[in-house]
């Protein structure tokens, strides 16, 4: 009897825990899924049925996708070029940010370059000013360099915005690498560059993947700077092109959503591809802690 009661109390406790989790989980799930559901719903609805308010279209179609891929609408004239631009810019920003911030973090954390920490703190200080406030000065600066309308202007601007955070994250991560590894490598005859290439980089892979993905997605999702710095239809990114859909009174919502859905797929793919690299524990076995 008493054992029975105990089991029942336990069950009640488990149920209440479960209930609390559900109470948090369900809203979060809805919060995330409803916009995506809407996007999917619009993208498989024919034009006139898009805003019908039904939970599932009467005649679902993939026609919108064909429409987008074949660039059959005024707003979509440069779809493939713009998708290409987005990719090119995002990948360039990811790669450049990685190069800059890895080198900086290595110099600050491992080579202990004099004044390195000050530089990092100054760089982080830029985050006190919202990026939006810096848009106009950045526009002027790029104008001074004659880079307006060149995709380089957006790449450089995004690298500038992404780098301080990336340097900081990488510096924190590399501070955790055992210092004896550097000393062992130096005694083994490694130069600073060899130390960087043969010991530092392989051990930083998880952080590099995380930081690279961050910079890449930041550039992929960027709207404001892309809108300001680029203006030719054939050179803007898809994010800007999506914004342009709203310029007209009767926007083709189903095409906007279809394009948006397509635009959202690469980040999801990137995230799931690289997730498994973002594991810790790569340095296990280096030193006894």
């Amino acid at each position: 009897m008493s054992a029975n009661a105990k089991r029942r109390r336990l069950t009640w406790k488990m149920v209440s825990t479960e209930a609390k989790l559900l109470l948090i989980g369900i809203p979060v799930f809805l919060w995330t899924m409803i916009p995506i559901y809407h996007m999917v719903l619009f993208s498989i609805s024919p034009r006139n049925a898009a805003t019908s308010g039904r939970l599932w279209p009467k005649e679902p179609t993939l026609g919108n996708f064909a429409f987008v891929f074949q660039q059959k609408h005024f707003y979509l004239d440069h779809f493939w070029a713009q998708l290409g631009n987005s990719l090119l810019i995002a990948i360039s920003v990811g790669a450049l940010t990685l190069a800059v911030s890895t080198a900086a973090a290595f110099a600050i954390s491992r080579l202990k370059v004099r004044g390195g920490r000050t530089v990092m703190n100054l760089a982080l200080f830029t985050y006190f000013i919202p990026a939006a406030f810096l848009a106009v000065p950045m526009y002027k600066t790029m104008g001074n360099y004659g880079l307006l309308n060149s995709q380089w202007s957006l790449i450089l601007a995004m690298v500038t915005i992404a780098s301080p955070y990336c340097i900081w994250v990488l510096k924190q991560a590399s501070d955790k690498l055992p210092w004896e590894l550097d000393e062992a490598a130096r005694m083994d005859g490694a130069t600073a560059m060899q130390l960087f290439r043969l010991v530092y980089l392989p051990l930083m892979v998880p952080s590099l993947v995380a930081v690279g993905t961050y910079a890449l997605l930041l550039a992929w999702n960027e709207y404001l700077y892309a809108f300001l710095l680029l203006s030719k239809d054939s050179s803007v990114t898809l994010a800007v092109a999506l914004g342009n859909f709203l310029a007209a009174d009767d926007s083709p919502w189903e095409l906007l959503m279809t394009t948006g859905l397509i635009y959202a797929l690469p980040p999801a793919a990137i995230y799931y591809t690289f997730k498994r690299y973002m594991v810790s524990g790569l340095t296990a076995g280096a030193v006894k802690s």
Partner: protein
Amino acid sequence: MATVSFQNIEKSFGKTKIIHGISFDIAEGEFVVLVGPSGCGKSTLLRMLAGLEPITGGEIAIDNKVINDLDSKDRDIAMVFQSYALYPHMTVRDNMAFSLKLRKADSGLTNSRVTNAARILNLDPLLDRFPRELSGGQRQRVAMGRAIVRDPKVFLFDEPLSNLDAKLRVAMRAEIKALHQRLKTTTVYVTHDQIEAMTMADRIVVMHDGIVEQIGTPLELFDRPGNLFVAQFIGSPSMNVLKGTLRRVDGREWVEAEGRQWPTLIHTQTLDGQAVHYGVRPTDITLSSSGTGIAAKVIVVEPTGAETELLLEVGGAQLVVVMHGRTSVRPDDTVHLEIAVDKTHVFDRASEQRLD
């Protein structure tokens, strides 16, 4: 093989001076152990020899060539770290071959060196494993293998056994000693464990607060400690030391401490009435069966099997005595002590230097 020479080595971190002019020479093929309590500067001295720490003053020479301004990699030395410092992303083989790879040695030579080192250290079956797949002792052996492969002029060991459990430590101690006997490479070994120092060293350098207290073979340090610090640091359990006054009357000499007369040999450097420390090792005291000698009260009896350790009280002081075999002595018994008079040590109270 090579000689190493330290000349007036000084080291400061900022305004804090931690090594105050150390000089000594290490002969070819010698196994020298730097030993001392934490913070005595032994690791710093080793790191200066390794080139990991700049030298504030003085000169370090390897084979009579001053190496102060040479990079670590150009000093032809290999170091084994306390924490092993294995490259976690490389296999055992790659860890060991790393230095040769950096030197662009040809692969035949690299292979034969790695195979040879692996054979010496019984690492053959582990060559393709990663450090994380190895036990502590195996990692330590890989770290040694990495040093052997280099075939350097000097091996440096920085507390290499501190991270191992007690049993493994004893085994690795013997392994390192055997390795040295086989390779005969000049070795500098840092430890805070005086047993390690005693068992492994050809010569021991005892350091304390940034100076060298004494240099000598293990048994020299044990038998004739040059000062009170060395006397108490070397030996386990450590030497019994009593504060007393030296008396010399009618060609007889003894130390008066705790109201008793403690026997000593005749000294040439002492004066009647001189304040001294009187030292005698726990193994140099025996219990007298005749009821003569200094009376002491037994406080604790600690049998360890082959030996029995007694904690005794004489006046206000406590003494440790190590007896061979077993004893029927019980706490609160009174025993009488016989002291091996030729194995007593007397140190001046003020200077703490040995008096002969």
